[in-house]
């Protein structure tokens, strides 16, 4: 693990589907709704494009929280993508919980293109959760050769 | 008991959802004992939903329901009005807190035309 000189700041990766949530994030910007700069958005075509690998990779590379945003169930641009995402993420989150990783480091939120306010609020509350959880060490420490 | 609590109890006993009702009145349209009743099947559903159960508890309509289940059978929304009537009836009986029919009183009440089934349902209805 690298030595940090600066005080810890959370690093949050947000996967946003192109059609609803990314547009919702844009709307938050257009309405000048503030949320912390710790949130970095990655655009994906649909929430069903988010591979559990991406989420684990983010944690592996030092992310403290990962949030997946998609269209509301029933509103998916591709009709069923978010339904698949919902099952996949439910199972993945349950597994992470089972391994003893803190609840709340991962989240799924449905944000429509009209919900700029909800996007900003979601990010604010998510950052708050991550700050209260502190640095993400558990996933990295899960397999520790020294023990 | 307060009306609200009574409503909750009735809803619990009925184990049916009055909100599913679309107020079509088919239950009352089908009811064979409609004219005898002060409150009709659809009113039981609606009044329980609204929490207005006091008049129902005091009404003779409770005992005029034949439990023929035609309202349950006909209801397009599967609201099962008879369950509400039965639940109000049970609430009333519980409120009374005593049995209304004692076995020793029965021989006096029956004549030779009384069907056995009536005795069974009378016990079901009037005893605890």
């Amino acid at each position, binding site marked *: 693990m690298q030595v940090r000189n600066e005080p810890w700041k959370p*690093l949050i*990766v947000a996967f946003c589907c*192109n059609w609803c949530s*990314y*547009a919702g*994030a*844009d709307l*938050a*910007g*257009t309405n*000048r*709704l*503030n*949320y912390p*700069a710790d949130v*970095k*958005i*990655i655009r*994906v*075509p*649909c929430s*069903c*494009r*988010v*591979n*559990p*690998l*991406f989420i684990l*990779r*983010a944690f592996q*590379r030092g*992310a403290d929280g990962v949030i997946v945003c998609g269209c509301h169930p029933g509103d998916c*641009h*591709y*009709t*069923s*993508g978010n339904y*698949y995402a919902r099952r*996949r993420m439910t199972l993945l989150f349950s597994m992470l919980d089972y391994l003893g990783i803190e609840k709340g480091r991962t989240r799924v939120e449905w944000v429509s293109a009209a919900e700029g306010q909800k996007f*900003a609020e979601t990010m604010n509350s998510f950052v708050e959760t991550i700050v209260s959880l502190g640095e993400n060490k558990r996933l990295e420490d899960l397999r520790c050769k020294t023990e | 008991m307060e009306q609200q609590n009574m409503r909750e109890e009735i809803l619990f006993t009925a184990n049916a959802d009055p909100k*599913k009702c*679309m*107020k*079509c*009145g*088919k*239950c*009352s*349209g*089908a*009811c064979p004992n*409609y004219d005898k009743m002060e409150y*009709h099947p*659809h009113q039981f559903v609606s009044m329980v939903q609204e929490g207005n159960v006091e008049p129902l508890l005091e009404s003779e309509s409770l005992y005029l329901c034949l439990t023929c289940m*035609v309202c349950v059978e*006909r*209801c*397009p*929304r*599967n609201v099962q009005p008879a369950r509400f009537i039965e639940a109000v009836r049970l609430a009333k009986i519980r409120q009374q807190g005593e049995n209304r029919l004692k076995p020793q009183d029965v021989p006096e009440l029956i004549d030779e035309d009384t069907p056995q089934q009536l005795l069974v349902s009378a016990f079901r209805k009037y005893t605890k």
Partner: protein
Amino acid sequence: MQRIGVFVCWCGSNIAGTVDVKKVAQTLGREPGVVFSADYQYMCSQSGQDLIKDSIKQYKLTGAVICSCSPRMHENTFRKAAAAAGLNPYMVEIANIREQVSWIHKDMAAGTEKAIILGRAAIAKVHLNAPLIAGESPVTKRALVIGGGIAGIQTALDIADAGFPVDIVEKSPTIGGKMAQLDKTFPTLDCAACILTPKMVEAAQHENVRILAYSEVAEVKGFVGNFTVKIRRKARYVKEDVCTGCGLCTEKCPQKKAPDEFNLGLSNRRAIYIPFAQAVPKVATIDPDYCMMLKTGKCGVCSKVCGVKAIDYTQKDEFIEENYGAIVAATGFEPIGLDKFDEFAYSLSPDVVTSLEYERLMNAAGPTGGTLLRPSDLKHPHTIVFVQCVGSRCDEKSEKGVPYCSKVCCMYTAKHAMLTREKYPDTEVYVFYIDVRTPGKNFDEFYRRAVEQYDVHYIKGMVGKVVPENGKLKVQASDLLENRQLHIDADMVVLAAAIEPDKSARPLATMLTASMDTNDFFTEAHPKLRPVESPTAGVFLAGMCQGPKDIPETVSQASACAAKVIGLLNKDRLVGNPCVAHSDELMCNGCSQCANVCPYGAITYADKEFRMPDRTTAVRRVAQVNPAVCQGCGACTVTCPSGAMDLFGFSNNQIMAEVDAICK
């Protein structure tokens, strides 16, 4: 190694106000692979685009990163600019530093830092970008309309008028559908035949329309622009091109006991028949279930009387195969069966009829010649009870009816009530309703006229039971507003039976890989914005098969549907979205999981021969994506355990590189 140019936009003060654009440009300029970086006031302006174009040429850029507003805003602008300078448009990535940075973060240092990180992520992605060329496929300029009701006819006519050939496949012997059976149409009360039959004739005579009546779709292959459809032409036992429709055979046929479908079994027809006088095509059809010649080999009267020798008892079903660019589903509806509603005595008394049967009883060409007579004793009914919502709006778990509102019943019941009162003022008409739903132009006014002008008794309540007794129908119902139970001795009871999608729709949807809801209505691509398209590209929807609707709505939807079809057929080639899935055949297991999740049916499987490490060959099943059908959602990529399935433009390693760049 890519040669990447970074272009940082100020967006006036929109970005430059809270992001140090110079610092962003300088820092990103030092990233590996970046050979040029610049900042500019308005990158989307003409001079900004020129800067991009010139730099691409001057520095021989192989990729570009634009740090600017949302890609939803100007991605296309910058891609076009890149293409104009000879760079593949898909080598351009946008870092959104306006909506996601400058507009939400007030702190200059934090904003600048985030802008740099987002820029790095975009650079990391461009390093893995590959030029993409959108696939093209030709378009067969011919449309297939499945269903020859008013929806199908209108769609076909509109497409044909635009100059494209159209085939209408209709399963019954004539086109016209349910509308042909109607008497009058609300709210204007013009006669259905008067407005429909000219359209049927127009379809028959239109040079671009071919009517394949008495036919069914047997198989559908292909994809948008390139469907191949196998159509079963059922044996009529009459040569369609020879028969003149003179009708002599239908008069001479000795078998008079076949139920007349057009009159819903209220009258009988012969074994050889023409459904109704205005049928299109006006050709006789032999009903093999009733024809003595076909059943026993003894008769042959029709063949003897036919002047043009059109009868052919040896005819067999034939299959034709045709190519189409677009397919329209217009399979329509049917009323639900009422066998589960014993309380209304539908199966006990002939005087309890459905609304569609009532239409026939009112119709001048119907079984009673237009005089309203009740079926049991052919006497004039004096009291008629209409019951609405029979089977509509039922509980979702109900096995009797359907959960939705059938939408048309309120209006046609008002129509029936009104017409009955107008023709026979001595008739008492009761309508039992739960709610009267009349949204639509001049609809509520129409209903009010029934109540106010024609004195129809509208009673809020529902009929509980109907008992036939001594030639009367004893109707017991509730009147909720007066809080009483009504007992009416009626002569007829008319049931507004719920409508449901035609039974042929479900197998058709399977053939088309079009999706359906739990009620067997076709689902639209988007419930608000793409209401006449199926999620399956190239498949369009018109009329009741998509949901309950009346004639004006059906016709509007049909024309909208035709517009979409014309738009598709007008193209010579379909240019696809190049950001589609593709499968690496060397890694594919052929396990079908990707096809299971694909909402578009874009994935098929082929057996391919592979060389094995031991130099033998083995045949393996591998997935193949049809780029013309794939919409690029990526559901398959995550389902694929081996990672054989990947998405152009959003590949596994591209997204992973973005994650890495952000989390560095």
